[in-house]
């Protein structure tokens, strides 16, 4: 803060249904940087906020899943453009949130922007990569096409506040799902600011809904919500017991579950990660994302249609 000017603080708010509400509970909690310096008071969302977010996501699902893949790609690319324009803000927020140097935070933000571009390109290609005609042994046209699962709850990684968040969110909406995102509990500010980017990127309201708060408190009603079709448990990576409970709750309506990537078979790594909060999600978010996060929340629809016959011989051509 140069020249003694008093800066204007931002009140961080949720992003639900295209609007920026506070928590209906009126609760906030204090967010600090890793050294304990106060950064902001953020909404501590409630079960009710989570349910409202699901309603908003469901409402947005019809239009978003029905939009052309090209249109979705354009919008995801627009998000990259808007994020690029706010690069400095996010570098500051990520540096504060994750205790990174400016240059390391800048690399993280750049990677997050590029990740939107990567997924912008996937919207109209994933169907060509995982779908296709099936040569059934009969006079039938048979075509398999991927379709979005529906409303997906996304527990964003606890450590990687922006790149990790984008890496789990973008593939969910690229394929036409709508999302309810639970931001990193201790580092939610980049996520809440991302809501402001999304709101100015032609993304229809309700396609992405972002909640801050205690992960377990919000994850439980989402995992058991009967109108949620899938859940990404990445944000529960540091808590195997919680992840197991959520997965069991999700079984009630057979939600598609993406398990946390921390391997249960490598307890030493888990312990080591737990000791380093920034790495607690256990993922290298700068690595090639592959396609598994795209396919996790896709259904395959196969259409059969008889091809008929043209008579005995057909054409000799």
């Amino acid at each position, binding site marked *: 803060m140069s020249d003694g000017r008093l800066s204007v603080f931002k009140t961080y708010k949720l992003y639900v249904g295209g609007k920026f509400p506070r928590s209906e509970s009126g609760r906030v909690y204090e967010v600090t940087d890793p050294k304990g310096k106060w950064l902001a008071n953020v909404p501590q969302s409630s079960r009710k906020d989570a349910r409202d977010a699901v309603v908003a996501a469901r409402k947005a699902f019809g239009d978003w899943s029905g939009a052309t893949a090209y249109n979705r790609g*354009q919008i995801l690319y627009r998000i990259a453009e808007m994020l690029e324009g706010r690069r400095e803000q996010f570098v500051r927020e990520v540096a504060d949130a994750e205790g990174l140097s400016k240059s390391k935070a800048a690399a993280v933000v750049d990677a997050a922007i590029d990740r939107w571009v990567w997924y912008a390109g996937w919207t109209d*290609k994933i169907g060509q990569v995982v779908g296709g005609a099936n040569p059934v042994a009969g*006079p039938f046209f048979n075509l398999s096409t991927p379709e979005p699962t529906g409303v997906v709850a996304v527990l964003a990684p606890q450590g990687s506040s922006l790149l990790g968040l984008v890496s789990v969110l973008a593939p969910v909406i690229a394929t036409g799902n709508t999302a309810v995102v639970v931001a990193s509990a201790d580092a939610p500010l980049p996520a809440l600011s991302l809501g402001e980017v999304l709101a100015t990127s032609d993304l229809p309201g309700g396609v992405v809904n972002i909640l801050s708060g205690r992960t377990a408190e919000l994850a439980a009603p989402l995992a058991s919500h009967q109108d949620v079709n899938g859940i990404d448990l990445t944000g529960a990576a540091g808590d195997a017991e919680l992840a197991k409970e959520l997965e069991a709750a999700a079984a009630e309506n057979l939600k598609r579950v993406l398990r946390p990537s921390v391997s249960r078979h490598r307890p030493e790594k888990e312990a080591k990660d737990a000791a380093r909060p920034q790495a607690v999600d256990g993922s290298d978010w700068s690595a090639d994302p592959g396609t598994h996060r795209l396919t996790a929340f896709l259904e395959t629809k196969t259409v059969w249609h008889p091809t008929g016959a043209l008579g005995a011989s057909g054409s000799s051509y």
Partner: protein
Amino acid sequence: MASAFEYAPAPESRSVVDIAPSYGLFIDGEFTEAADGKVFKTLSPSTEEVLSEVARAGAEDVDRAVKAARKAFEKWSALPGSERAKYLFRIARIIQERSRELAVLETLDNGKPIRETRDADLPLVAAHFFYYAGWADKLDHAGYGANPRPLGVAGQIIPWNFPLLMLAWKIAPALATGNTVVLKPAETTPLSALFFADVCRQAGLPKGVVNILTGYGDAGSALVTHPDVNKVAFTGSTAVGKAIARQIAGTDKRATLELGGKGANIVFDDAPVDQAVEGIVTGIFFNQGQVCCAGSRLLVQESVHDEVLHALKRRLTTLRLGDPLDKNTDIGAINSAEQLARITALVETGEAEGAERWSAPCELPSTGYWFAPTLFTGVTQAHTVARDEIFGPVLSVLTFRTPDEAVAKANNSQYGLSAGIWTEKGSRILAVANKLRAGVVWANTFNKFDPTSPFGGYKESGYGREGGRHGLEAYLDV
């Protein structure tokens, strides 16, 4: 009837485009004169007004351009795919931003209606770059094995019917896969490619990655035969396509050829007539019929022949022919005097051979190159107008009785680019589509294009596919 549809002129403004009096060749990021200083003029086919004078490339210029592309190839192909993607996304966005300017330019230089350049050509151009941009960092997922490599320098020759769209079809996949290009636009429509050079400049594309050589067939031939060109991509006539295939024989050059067509548009007796008539009109009168995949042979089931023809003629009398810049214009100018002469000669042959000619009653402007929407009835498979590609607004109508006969007649062609099927019966669509020897089959629609959808022909309509995941293969060493 025409008086009931009088429209006031609604011209699109020319002021959005600023055409320079002359243009050079775009080589290694710079505009430069041809080595021998030769130039040629490009006209507006609707007014015969000279739009600009452009450099005429010769063999020496081709060599310079190929060298520039070769030099640029090393770095361009070594860039991470995600960086190439971002250049292509930039190009897509800049084209979107400048789409009105480019649409007006294309209409001026080509003669096609502004409605088409604005609503079809330009949106497809931007979409094509957007689509292939996304592939640049996903080639490992395209089904061609891990880390597929580019071919090198691509020599690309495009036609005058969709100048900027054909440029996009050529350049977008080539660049996405890591190739560099030397592209020659057609001599009658050089301007949009030169404007594209400026788009590349705005996008910050590295020098030499895209080189544009305006010129004639001699430049194209020099490009095809240049020893340091690894891939030839050509869209144009079947005769030139065959010549190219001969020229590259015995080399290790790859080629894709998108050539002529004589598409059959098959109308069954259960088809909704009004919808089919719209499809027939789109099929043959879109872009004045100067479309390689045009539905230039109408095969109509005998029992509905009279009904379809009556509705079709009625519809054709409502088409508005005239100023391509007028937003109400359906039919613009023929691209060149040469093309007009070719169409005229083939139509005269059709009449001489005994087919019955009918042309829509419309007044043709006194300057420029024009041809009224025309159809021939009483056409047999032996008639020239049923066999040769006319590449103009001329439809030949044949009849059939059974689906088998329709398929036999549809396939009775040296070509195999496109076909249309009009019927309410889904199983018949698929059965007929299965039997057609054509690369693109439209059912209950016609002339639909999308960057995700492969396009290309069977038989003498050429080989290779452009568009979609399939379109990557033509630019990869796989």
